[in-house]
């Protein structure tokens, strides 16, 4: 490499920067606009700078049950996250061996990704109503969201186990470890960083899910449903303030997960053996 970049680098680099602006620009814009003064509207110019619209969010009467829906979304997100992580590990382990029917199960999992969300929502709603059950975010909503998060978790685990070196497990087994010990002390630590990824998918996809929860959450809304309801009757920057807050929440969740993954990586690098690297 002579260190000089070809012209195409600068053209593609510019394209990439434009793409990032396209991705993030609108979000930053509503971030700025959420600090509109009390007299400000939905677009520029800014009429003063204030926290008025954030303050409005805390006046429960003004905008509906935002905090209740936030608590529900948080609880549901955690439920979906834990279930997705556990079931994805199990599924990943199952697929390390070929088994009768593995292809069919695989195609059902993939179908879950491409079947339009509204069908899942409608179908579950119909089943519950015919069975005489009430739809509720923690039952029907929970199941509906799993059909969206599980395939992502499983895809990650399939990819992880496809690249997994079985030599470590064999070594442990040769030393007399039971299969549970092999899993607990060898497999689990090795796949831990990917599990952070699965957990991140599980939580955020659930927290932001809209279409599958629409007909399955019952009379208590989750946050995305509440926000969508607001778009039809709230026409003030309070919408931006809410958007900014929940985006910040999502970003801090992503940040926390990335930090955990990084921390695991660091610790592993520090404690890692230098066996096989030769004498220095």
């Amino acid at each position, binding site marked *: *490499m002579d260190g000089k*970049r070809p012209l195409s*680098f600068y053209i*593609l680099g510019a*394209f*990439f920067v434009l*793409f990032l602006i*396209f*991705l*993030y*620009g*609108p979000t930053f*814009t509503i971030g700025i*606009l959420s600090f509109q003064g009390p007299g400000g509207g*939905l*677009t*520029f110019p800014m009429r003063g700078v204030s926290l008025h619209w954030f303050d409005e969010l805390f006046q429960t009467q003004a905008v509906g049950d935002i905090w209740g829906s936030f608590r529900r979304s948080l609880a549901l997100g955690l439920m979906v996250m834990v279930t997705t992580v556990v*079931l994805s590990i*199990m*599924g990943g382990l*199952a*697929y390390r*061996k070929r*088994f009768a*029917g*593995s292809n069919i*199960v695989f195609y*059902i*999992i*993939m179908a*879950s*990704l*491409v*079947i*339009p969300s509204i*069908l*899942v929502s*409608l*179908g579950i709603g119909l*089943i519950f109503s015919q069975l005489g059950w009430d739809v509720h975010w923690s039952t029907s909503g929970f*199941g*509906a969201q*799993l*059909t969206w998060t*599980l395939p992502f978790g499983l895809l990650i685990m399939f990819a992880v186990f496809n690249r997994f070196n079985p030599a470590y497990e064999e070594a442990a087994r040769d030393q007399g470890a039971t299969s549970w010990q092999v899993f607990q002390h060898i497999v689990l630590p090795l796949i831990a960083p990917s599990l952070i990824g699965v957990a991140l*998918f599980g939580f955020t*996809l659930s*927290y932001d899910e*809209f*279409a599958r929860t629409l007909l399955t959450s019952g009379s208590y809304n989750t946050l*995305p449903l509440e*926000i*969508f309801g607001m*778009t039809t009757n709230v026409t003030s920057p309070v*919408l931006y303030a809410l*958007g900014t807050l*929940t985006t910040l929440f*999502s970003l801090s*969740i*992503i940040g926390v997960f990335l930090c955990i993954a990084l921390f695991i990586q660091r610790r592993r690098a520090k404690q890692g053996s230098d066996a096989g690297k030769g004498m220095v």
Partner: protein
Amino acid sequence: MERLFRRPGAQSWMLVSPIMLILVFFLLMPIGMITAVSFWGSTEFSIYPAFQFDNYEYLFGSQVVWNVFIKTFTFALITWAITLSIGFTVAYFLTFHVHTLTWQITLFLLCTIPFWTSNIIRMISWVPFLGRNGIANQSLIGMGLIDEPLEWLLFSDFAVILAFVHLYTLFMVVPIFNTMMRIDKSLIEAARDGGASGFQILTNVIIPLTKPGIMIGSIFVVALVMGDFITVRFMSGSQIANVGRLISNDIGLLQYPSAAATAVVLLCTVLITIAIMLRFVDIRKEL
């Protein structure tokens, strides 16, 4: 019991059984239920079990419905073409022009972070841009390019496709980047040594080797766009219909049998489209 447990595959089946239970109850049975209800009848106030083809007859006999299906395909096709061009270019830049792994991962993460934030908020965030007095119109007037604000920016086909591209380009970037990163760089050197031009390397080496990633991304984008109803509703200000909106309108009117029939036709359309695309790639090999 002991013998059953020792049979090959028994352990795997036990491990996948919770997943299967969930998918059977929350995915396959609902689809079965929709199929059944699509043959039911309905009055203004209630629905009743039956086996009649009225819902389908109405569906296939209506010119409006045909137009809506064509609209849905058009959205899918245009969004696919745009997201593919952008996604391929971005992945190409990350893979072949960014030289250190740390930077590749950092920039890649920057592209994927919006995926983990709310789609609804990301749609709402276009409003200050595209509105009649929005940033786009203000700056175009400011530059003297137009005298009157453009009316077709928000609540139009343009807005819908813009939002689709904004939301779903990530689904192209990720799989294409994933396959591109696995291309052996020596193949490209070999092609260059053999006298291939940059363009020839792109069309004869990189694109064929990236095809699986392209197909996976395409399947995601096409399935998401065809099954969407909320983006179209929000970005068109309820002025444009796609198939998803037909379904959600029927649901709103409690016309479940009619909604179910439309849903069945939509599902078949999506699955056939994807089956055709799958002929070009083996997904399990790509993981």
